């Protein structure tokens, strides 16, 4: 087996098949598994560099102009603008944006005549609306994430980025003894040569 294959693959184990369905088309491209539950580790340096703070899957499209499908989505902190942004992918013919406004609604922006609800946020909202507290909700729905949790996670990323961006103050050079006339003249000669080299 090639080195590339071994280093890039993730093995699925303990597969339990409950049913095999007749379906119209792949919800995502052929042979791609849909991961509805996943564990996000503490944001790594690599993740921060990629600016991806969290991800998950949208609900299947309803009332769509195209067949029902889902998208994988990711939310991230735009380091240039400081805004929470998001995108979805997995479908070739259209895409959706996630804006702070759509995130607050728990869904994507409209594209191709439809929107998608963000599964994890939706799950949280449904449970909270049903009067369950977060602890109880987490116990019953493993993939729950609330807006507050998302924002806290993004705040953490932002704080980490800010810390990384801090410049280490450079201490001032210590004052030395005054230059003699000869030393001053030699220094001016060097400066003149450097300026001449820079101009040429």
């Amino acid at each position: 087996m090639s080195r590339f294959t071994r280093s890039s693959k993730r093995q699925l184990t303990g597969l339990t098949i409950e049913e095999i369905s007749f379906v119209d088309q792949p919800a995502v491209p052929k042979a791609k598994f849909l991961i509805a539950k996943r564990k996000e580790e503490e944001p790594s340096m690599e993740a921060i560099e990629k600016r991806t703070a969290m991800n998950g899957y949208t609900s299947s499209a309803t009332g769509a102009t195209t067949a029902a499908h889902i998208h994988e989505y990711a939310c991230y902190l735009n380091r240039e603008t400081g805004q929470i942004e998001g995108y979805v992918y997995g479908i070739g013919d259209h895409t959706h944006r996630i804006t702070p406004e759509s995130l607050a609604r728990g869904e994507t922006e409209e594209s191709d005549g439809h929107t998608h609800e963000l599964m994890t946020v939706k799950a949280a909202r449904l449970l909270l609306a049903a009067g369950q507290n977060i602890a109880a909700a987490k116990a019953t729905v493993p993939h729950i994430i609330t807006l507050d949790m998302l924002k806290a996670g993004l705040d953490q990323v932002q704080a980490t980025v800010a810390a990384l961006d801090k410049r280490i103050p450079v201490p001032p050079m210590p004052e030395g003894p005054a230059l003699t006339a000869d030393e001053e003249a030699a220094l001016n000669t060097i400066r003149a040569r450097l300026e001449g080299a820079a101009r040429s």
Partner: protein
Amino acid sequence: MTRQLELVSESKLQATRFAPIVKRSEDAGFILAAVLVPDEIDLQGDVISAEEIERAAYDYMEASQRGGYMHKQVLQDVVLVESTILRAETMINGVPLAKGTWLVGFRVYNEELRELIKDGTITGLSIGGWSSRKTDKEPS
């Protein structure tokens, strides 16, 4: 210390996988699809071994054999009539299938579903279930 951003409390993953129909009868009363292919890297870099496919297939045959529609409805009028683990590379309808591939065949007694298959609306099968993920280490 940074706070952990935790989305789930367990390691199980919900998984579905699309498998196009590789063969069907003219009246769509029978369809065949390769539902799992060993060591085929999907777009997320996940693979499943031949041993894992065989075990999962046997478990499904023993415990379930259920067929459904769009993972939303169990169908009583589709019957699993074939479950084969390929012991050698095989060609079906011009589609090469690797050794260890799991093929399933259903008889379809649901007239509405037959029409959907015939007109190309229904194009494949999709397994629905649960799995865990183990990431291989980079070889030294």
